[in-house]
């Protein structure tokens, strides 16, 4: 110790904790973690390609086949839904990435380093959810806007396009990006609860894709009553303008889906604080 430092010390016996942990700093750390993994970059790129590529492909097929399509096909044609076809697959890649964002830390042991740096733990969960939601929105919003406008311009060759100003369309297009964002958070919550990559992915897929067909096996009075409240059904209504029977209104459905995501995070938060690492 030099004399200068001991003087500085005695004049500052309780030096302000300059390097203390804040929520903003933890968020910055989580952003570094997110962008420094090859798997994250790939998954986001795949989401972008799926969303744009599949939508354009679907629009191209319809535009090319339109003169040969029968009345039934023409009646069931939905220009908005076709251009957003890729979102159906993107939800899976985003949801799985959400699981990975946290399960990857558990499987590699990184979580011990993370919690040694932030022993209060909850700031890590909030930061992961916030940063991942922001990144997902930043990727998916341009993707859905691009695929909507490119897709509709392809469809316009047959004059079967729908305008952005058409009632509900703007809400549905932007809603598709919001849907993907919340799906990512839902996956992250599940990943934090399950703590294993494979288990987390299986749980997510089961909730989204296995629950609905099982429900379909029940008597229709039951399934019609329950179906609107399933996460998958509640999530879908925001990005469609032709609601099916037995569904909630767009914003009510989306609010419920947000509730599911919030619940998964809340359960994860309780477990995160209580469980050993």
């Amino acid at each position: 110790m030099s004399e200068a430092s001991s003087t500085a010390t005695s004049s500052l016996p309780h030096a302000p904790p300059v390097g203390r942990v804040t929520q903003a700093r933890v968020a910055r750390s989580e952003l570094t973690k997110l962008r420094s993994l090859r798997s994250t970059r790939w998954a986001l790129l795949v989401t972008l390609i799926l969303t744009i590529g599949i939508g354009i492909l679907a629009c191209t097929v319809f535009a090319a086949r339109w003169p040969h399509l029968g009345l039934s096909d023409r009646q069931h044609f939905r220009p908005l839904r076709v251009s957003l076809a890729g979102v159906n697959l993107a939800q899976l890649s985003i949801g799985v990435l959400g699981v990975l964002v946290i399960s990857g830390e558990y499987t590699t042991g990184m979580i011990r380093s993370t919690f040694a740096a932030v022993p209060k733990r909850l700031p890590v969960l909030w930061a992961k959810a916030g940063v991942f939601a922001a990144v997902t929105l930043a990727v998916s919003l341009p993707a859905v806007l691009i695929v909507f406008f490119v897709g509709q311009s392809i469809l316009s060759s047959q004059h079967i396009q729908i305008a952005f100003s058409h009632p509900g369309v703007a809400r549905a297009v932007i809603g598709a990006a919001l849907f993907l964002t919340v799906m990512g958070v839902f996956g992250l919550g599940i990943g934090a609860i399950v703590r294993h990559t494979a288990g987390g992915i299986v749980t997510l897929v089961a909730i989204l894709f296995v629950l609905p067909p099982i429900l379909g096996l029940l008597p229709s009075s039951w399934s019609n009553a329950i179906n609107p409240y399933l996460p998958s059904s509640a999530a879908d209504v925001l990005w469609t303008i032709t609601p099916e029977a037995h569904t909630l209104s767009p914003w009510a459905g989306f609010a419920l889906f947000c509730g599911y995501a919030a619940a998964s995070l809340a359960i994860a938060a309780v477990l995160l604080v209580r469980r050993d690492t």
Partner: protein
Amino acid sequence: MPQSAWDPNQLLIRACLTCGRAHGESGRTRLIEANGLTKRYGEKVAVRDLTFTVRPGVVTGFLGPNGSGKSTTMRLILGLDAPNSGHATVNGKRYRDHLAPLHEVGALLEARSVHTGRSAYNHLLALAQTHGIGRSRVRELIEMVGLGEVATKRAGQFSLGMGQRLGIAATLLGDPAIVMLDEPVNGLDPEGIQWVRNLLKGLAAEGRTVFVSSHLMSEMALTAEHLIVIGRGELIADMNTADFVRRASKKAVRVRSPQAARLRELIAGSDVSVADIEPGVLEITGLTAEQIGEAAAANAIVLHELTPQQATLEEAFMELTQDAVEFQAGAPPLPPATAGAPA
């Protein structure tokens, strides 16, 4: 790896980057205090009623066989696992109650605690950013631990030794008052082991608290001035390393004599035990070398060798853990009738 980059004193003497002060100063107790720590995993008791204090300024070794609860104890201190009873504090507070934990304790955790897909640089940067520690500090530490050339490689491709160096770099990020390392020399080459020894001694000489676990007694003999020894999750010894060896030393005397049989008869007694090591060589416990030598001279017995045996640290350790095991087995809990009866 260039030797110059390994000089631990480079980073340690100067002031802390995050707060501009030199460390080891007042305002912090710099103690690790474990108070009645008990941790069970299901039926298995990993740590039982462990109480000890680790003090600044010296390297304190945390010694015990594999599976004796060393890593568990360190996880309890860091709050990674919650104890079933008891508590641990660092610098007077629970670890999780500190505002800048990496500034209080730098910890090297067991095995790998690194995401295999992330580069060494980004791993350290992510940890540093939680405390607002800058990139320059990260680069400096990477150079210091000798990972400069592989800083952008994924940590999953690292050897065990490189992983340990990365872990040690993470330990020093916040210029902590307390350094706690779990088996730091595992997987290091001789040069790396030497470097870790010097680093630990340098950190202690700076006035920091250095708590380092190992199952290797010989390693502890070289680095630790003080020892906390556990076996089966219980405290066996908490003492100066030299005292530890002395206390456990069996104080035997090795005697080589062509008249071994006669010497044996001569010194026989209730307090004396004699072991035949090989023909003509005895190991005598219960008498000093002086007493044996004088007895031999008085009876005109020729001695070719008369050597007091000093137990090595390994032997001392084996003996003490052995005692603990025997004590456990030989002292069942008092039967209720005896315990409850009025005296």
